[in-house]
């Protein structure tokens, strides 16, 4: 589904990302881990064409992301607050997205129904702008928005950060569910090794922009990662 070829990102002399090749098949849950500054967010941003690659390219189902736009309707993402319209209320925001994705009102209702448990009655129907929400609730809005419009792939940057433990579990359930039911491909970066090893089929470890480990075997994942991070 997503293919990375000879990707490089350089700021002047500093190489921040250098990925030879990476292929993410459909309906895989792809985990991305690495220390601060390893290049996780940069990789996601290049995949979404928010940052220009210095060399190489990312293709989504054969389309170069920097040359075409059609893939955008098939890929959902939530990286940071820049992707939200923070001056709207969550309801208005979802309504706006509904129009952009050309969904019916019933579709939107159905979609938000899935998030009922995660939202915990703190998001919908409140007279509060997104910018005034707490960090955790902000994240929930972003994740719900990213998974809207029946995307084939969803990119989430640190989705578990700032969520309370029960929300973290609910989110894990949601991700596994939509992977099961709609064959959605997930790309998740996280510092939380427990969560990411639990839900992901494959974990890639980045260090200083390079892929240094590509782990497929579930039983060995946590041990390898724990040794690397020294926990």
């Amino acid at each position: 589904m997503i293919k990375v070829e000879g990707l490089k990102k350089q700021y002047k002399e500093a190489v921040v990302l250098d990925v030879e090749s990476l292929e993410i098949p459909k309906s895989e849950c792809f985990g991305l881990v690495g220390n601060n500054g390893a290049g996780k967010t940069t990789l996601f941003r290049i995949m979404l064409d928010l940052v220009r690659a210095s060399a190489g390219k990312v293709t989504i189902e054969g389309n170069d992301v920097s040359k075409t736009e059609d893939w955008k309707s098939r890929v959902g993402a939530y990286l940071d607050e820049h992707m939200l319209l923070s001056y709207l209320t969550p309801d208005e925001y979802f309504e706006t997205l509904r129009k952009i994705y050309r969904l019916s009102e019933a579709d939107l209702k159905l979609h938000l129904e899935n998030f009922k448990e995660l939202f915990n009655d703190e998001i919908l129907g409140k007279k509060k702008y997104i910018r005034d929400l707490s960090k955790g609730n902000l994240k929930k809005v972003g994740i719900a928005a990213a998974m809207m419009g029946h995307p084939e792939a969803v990119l989430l940057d640190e989705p578990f950060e700032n969520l309370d433990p029960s929300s973290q579990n609910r989110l894990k359930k949601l991700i596994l569910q939509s992977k099961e039911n709609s064959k959605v491909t997930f790309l998740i970066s996280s510092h939380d090794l427990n969560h990411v090893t639990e839900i992901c089929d494959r974990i890639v470890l980045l260090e200083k922009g390079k892929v240094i480990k590509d782990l497929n075997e579930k039983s060995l994942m946590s041990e390898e990662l724990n040794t690397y991070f020294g926990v």
Partner: protein
Amino acid sequence: MVVALIRLELLKSIRSTSFAKSALVAVFLAFLALLLLSYVVFFGIFLKAIIEKGFESTDAYATLSGVMVYFFLFEFMYRYFVQKLPVIELERFLHLPIKKGNIMHFLLGRSFVSPLTLIAPLLFTPFAIQEIAPRFGSGAAWSWLFCIFFTSWSLHWLMLWFKQKFEDSLIGIGVVFALLLIGAGSTYYGWYNLGSLVKPIFDWSLASPLPVVVMGLIFMVTYWLAYTYYYSNAYLEDLTEEENVRFINQDLGIFSRFGLAGELANLEWKLIIRHKKSRTYLMLAGFFLLYGLIFYTNPVYKSETGFSHMFVFVGSFITGIFMLQYGQLFLSWNSANFDFFLQKRTGIEALVKGKYLLFVVTSSLCLLASVPYAYFGWDILLIHLVTFLFNMGVIMHLVIYLSLWKPKPMDINKGAMFNYEGVGIAQFLMIIPMIGAPYIIYLPFALLVNQYAGLLALGIVGVAGILAFPYLSKISIDKVLQNRHEISSSFRQEL
């Protein structure tokens, strides 16, 4: 402790991103401030001459003291609009183990270090030396001067309290309007003479030091008022701005007919209504509708045949003011959520088109609202119509194209007055083509044939531009798409 705070303050201004990134703008603004202050000094030096020659007054002192109250009314107005509140700084100090009282004294004291504090001394000291000291003695001059200084400076503290308590509320606007009415009632309608009611206070200050002592006390009382108010409200929740206009704002129905672009125009409308900076721009647009009154009623611009060439400028200003002001920061308004649009299919195209749509609608509203100017002659209505067409066909594309030159991020929750965030050199230079463009078309025809031919040419060019809209708008859209990576990383403040 205070020294440490002052040091922090200096470091802050030296290292602030806006200073480092646009040193040129900072230099320009500093130059502007110096220029304005030097005007004040010049005005002060020639104040006596101006009063004696200009107003044919034999007693310059009596005339000045008689109108002094208007100076203070005016000062109240400009302080209301210009003066900044020091509370924004509070957040960074409140959690530290520094006495709250010290923080407050420091912040209030810092706010006093401002060009506004200097205006009254610069303006009136030369006058006191030239006029009052020779006539009434130097003691009287000092006493008169300090009476004025303390009044001016009391206004400083009063304004800190007043703005924090009432800004953006109906009471605040009410008080400002009431003061305007008091001034106007006295000058225009002659119901009473405010000036001569207040004059005795200043006369008295020549003979006795008592008024100075009283004004000095008022100065201290107003400081104490500001201090206690700020001290007792030194909690983040109390001092952050309250949103008063929540949820009264609804969608503008007309936009919904234009598909995705219309939807984004609607979003933009909500953005305007819900942020302080854009709200101020909107209010200014309403205010500038009255701009015509200055020119159209002024006998200087009356001519026997036709109309003044100046009116073309006035017309394009009135019908396009919102577009000109809002448009010069075109993408900066969306700097906080630019990635949202980038990540949607055809999102950028729809965003730009939505803004076009918004400009067309607001300019049309301005045109409609300016119809009553027909009272000053049908010519004016014609000028407005023609400049409107020209704005839509040419200026709009020009503004948008120029504003795409290195757009900068800005925080649109801050006020608009004297806030130069997002403003770069492009925004300054933009003014030249904005004013020049209509005249390049209009003047040759107006001077060689006649004024109506000039208007006709403007109108034709405007209509041609409107017909070429799909092509012209594509230029801007392509430019954004081409630079999308640079723009988005600059908005994320990564550069």
